[in-house]
């Protein structure tokens, strides 16, 4: 019996190796670290450079400079881009001068405030990590979960409800309960397209998009109806959640750095462990890479798809729950600026690897947080950061551009973007 199972597992492995060309038994030729990060790194640099040109092109002082002479034009351009990016990075990582001064003064409050930009970037990264993991896990199962946004809304609504409706629980029960509610609701929402895919072959992309619409309208209904704040005048706004449901913040306001960031990291490790260290993860990846071969190997594809979607949805629900319990403390429309859709890009950027997703999420968090400071200092609209993000993603999705720009030799194994078998209609 036990032997039998091992055989099956081995068969799965053999097939996986056939498909991916990987042989886990033979020592893998390790790609150098630089080779691995080459494309993303260059994409970021190129995105920032083009973004700089855009900043210059939308700035009055640059045109005024060029009107005087070409040199003063370039001087103005340099100053604009310099100020913009300097504020972008001091706003997201902290100002080195302030940090050093604070460290020298030894005043704990000063140090915290000097480090706040960095901490705030981590706060902004947290929902990206959860949502990115959701998408990456689905990608690994060959599923395109474009419904992360809807699952996030439903997860947030469930966490909010548990957060305010249940009173008198101690924090160590209430907070995990609210988090769990968010994850469960997200999972339930994702199971619907999962079931439709597994049973009827209905394409999860279409069904996820539809589930998004239902989620938006449902939350609007809930927020203006059953979940509306008493005395809120019918505004789409929930009551404040109980203090006992808060995911604790480590420092006093205005520093928002909270436990959720570490929960997100823990989940990244968990997803990595499940995907790469368990049989079930292997099955999931096999189904994702080649469902026909997986079926031949005797894997239960239906179950894998449903459980894969559910786990992905649970992670998306966690993203929503995190925002409510750690940051907003009540739910309103305008909860998300599109984490669910950015998560697709994040998963791509991180090569659908949990740790890659964490790095990509940190990048997005840094850019998003720095944008605020950039806007305060140099009045550059926050949208420019969205454009920079988009450029970076385009360069990563189309590495040929980067190779052409930087004259890199192309190698076939580098085109390691996860295959989306679902696009081929492979069930």
């Amino acid at each position, binding site marked *: 019996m036990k032997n039998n199972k091992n055989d099956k597992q081995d068969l799965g492995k053999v097939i996986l190796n056939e498909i991916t060309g990987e042989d886990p038994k033979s020592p893998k030729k390790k790609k150098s670290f630089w080779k691995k990060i080459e494309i993303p790194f*260059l994409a970021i*640099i190129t995105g*920032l*450079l083009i973004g700089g040109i855009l900043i210059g092109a939308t700035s009055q002082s640059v045109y005024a400079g060029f009107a005087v002479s070409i040199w003063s034009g370039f001087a103005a351009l*340099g*100053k604009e*881009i*310099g*100020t913009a*990016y*300097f504020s972008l*990075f001091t706003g997201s990582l902290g100002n*080195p*001068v302030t940090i050093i001064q604070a460290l020298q003064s030894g005043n704990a409050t000063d140090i915290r405030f000097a480090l706040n930009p960095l901490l*705030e970037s981590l706060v*902004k990264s947290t*929902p990206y990590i959860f949502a990115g993991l959701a998408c990456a896990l689905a990608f690994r199962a060959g599923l395109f979960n474009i419904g992360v946004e809807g699952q996030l809304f439903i997860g947030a609504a469930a966490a909010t409800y548990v957060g305010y409706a249940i009173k008198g629980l101690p924090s160590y029960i209430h907070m995990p309960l609210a988090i769990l509610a968010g994850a469960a609701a997200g999972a339930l929402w994702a199971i619907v397209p999962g079931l439709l895919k597994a049973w009827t072959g209905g394409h999860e992309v279409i069904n996820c998009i539809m589930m998004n619409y239902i989620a938006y*309208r449902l939350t*609007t209904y809930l927020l*203006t109806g059953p979940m509306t704040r008493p005395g809120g*005048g*019918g*505004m*789409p*706004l929930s009551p*404040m959640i109980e203090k006992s449901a808060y995911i604790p913040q480590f420092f006093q*306001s*205005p520093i*928002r750095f909270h436990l959720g960031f570490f929960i997100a990291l823990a989940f990244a490790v968990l997803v990595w462990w499940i995907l790469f260290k368990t049989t079930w993860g292997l099955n999931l990846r096999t189904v994702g890479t080649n469902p026909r071969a997986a079926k031949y190997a005797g894997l239960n594809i239906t179950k894998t798809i449903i459980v894969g979607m559910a786990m992905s949805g649970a992670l998306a629900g966690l993203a929503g729950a995190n*925002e409510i319990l750690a*940051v*907003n*403390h*009540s739910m*309103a*429309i*305008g*909860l*998300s*600026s599109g984490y669910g859709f950015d998560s697709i890009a994040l998963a791509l950027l991180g090569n659908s690897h949990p740790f890659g997703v964490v790095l990509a999420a940190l990048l997005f968090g840094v850019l998003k*947080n720095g944008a*605020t*400071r950039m*806007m*305060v200092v140099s*009045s550059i*609209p*926050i949208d420019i950061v969205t454009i920079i993000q988009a450029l970076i993603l385009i360069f990563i999705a189309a590495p040929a551009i980067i190779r052409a720009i*930087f*004259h*890199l030799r192309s190698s076939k194994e580098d085109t390691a973007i996860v295959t989306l078998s679902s696009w081929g209609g492979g069930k």
Partner: protein
Amino acid sequence: MSKKLIVVLSVLMIAAFVLSACAKATPAAPAAPKFKACEVTDTGGVDDKSFNATAWKGVTDAMSQLGIDGKYLESKEVADFEPNINAFVQEKCDIIITVGFLLGDATKAAAEANPGVKFSIVDYGYDPVIPNVLGQAFQTDEAAFLAGYLAAGVSKTGKVGTFGGMQIPTVTIFMDGFYKGVQYYNTQKGAKVEVLGWTPADGTGLFTNDFSDQQKGNDMATSLMDEGADIIMPVAGPVGLGAAAAVKARGNAYIIGVDSDWYLTAPDYKDITLTSVMKLMDVTTLNAIKAAMDGTFKGGTTMGTLANGGVALAPYHDLSSMVSADLSKEIDTIKAGIIDGSIKLAQ
């Protein structure tokens, strides 16, 4: 070869940061600090052609009239409110203007944490009063009442229409006033002008549930015109512009603008803009800034009414020939009646 290029680029970028850092490190001797008014938008963004934009106009008016500094920060989602407000607190803004009920909680928290900073919030009020927050609320139904009466008087089909962006009080107050204005016309004249798109009695009506997709405004206006409405008041921010486009394409119908005077703010549609129900958040914002400057600032709520000019009906501009002298006079009388209390809207 390629690595060299990369190294050069990296060095250039680092150099740019370091140089700009040095430039920053030696600031010129600070001039006397100017008064600073700073606006935090809600998720609509500063160019929403609706309340964020109108409040920002109040700030820019203050910049040109009073010579102050103005800044704004756009919020993309609820989680941005708190850090955006705090960024302005750290910038030592003299007054921070927050826009919309979504910012209600964040503004309250920031105001209580920073009692020395003055705040003013558009479309919101606090009970009990927070001493350093001035809420700006609007009796929009007073102006919309006039618009309803006007629409009923001008309509040839005997049907007028309205729709909203979302069923929330700041939107439905326009539609309520409009509806009541039409009913008032009917009782005064024994007419039977119908209102499509909003029934206050059971709270049902047309809503796009969207403040950004203009196509939805286009669809709403088209179906209202199909039903026979020839005057349409869209209460949906920029979505209303889609309705204006539909009306302009079809012809034989007119639009009543909201928030600002659309004749001026949406000049593409000035030939079909009968009037606008103006909610003058720019005026109340400017007043809040003035009060903060001259030291008369007090916490509480200002209520914009017809009486104090916080809400108003815009001029008829090019379409004044459509409004008969009698009708125009009646509207002036009703306006006076609302102001002196002889006509009551709340029933």
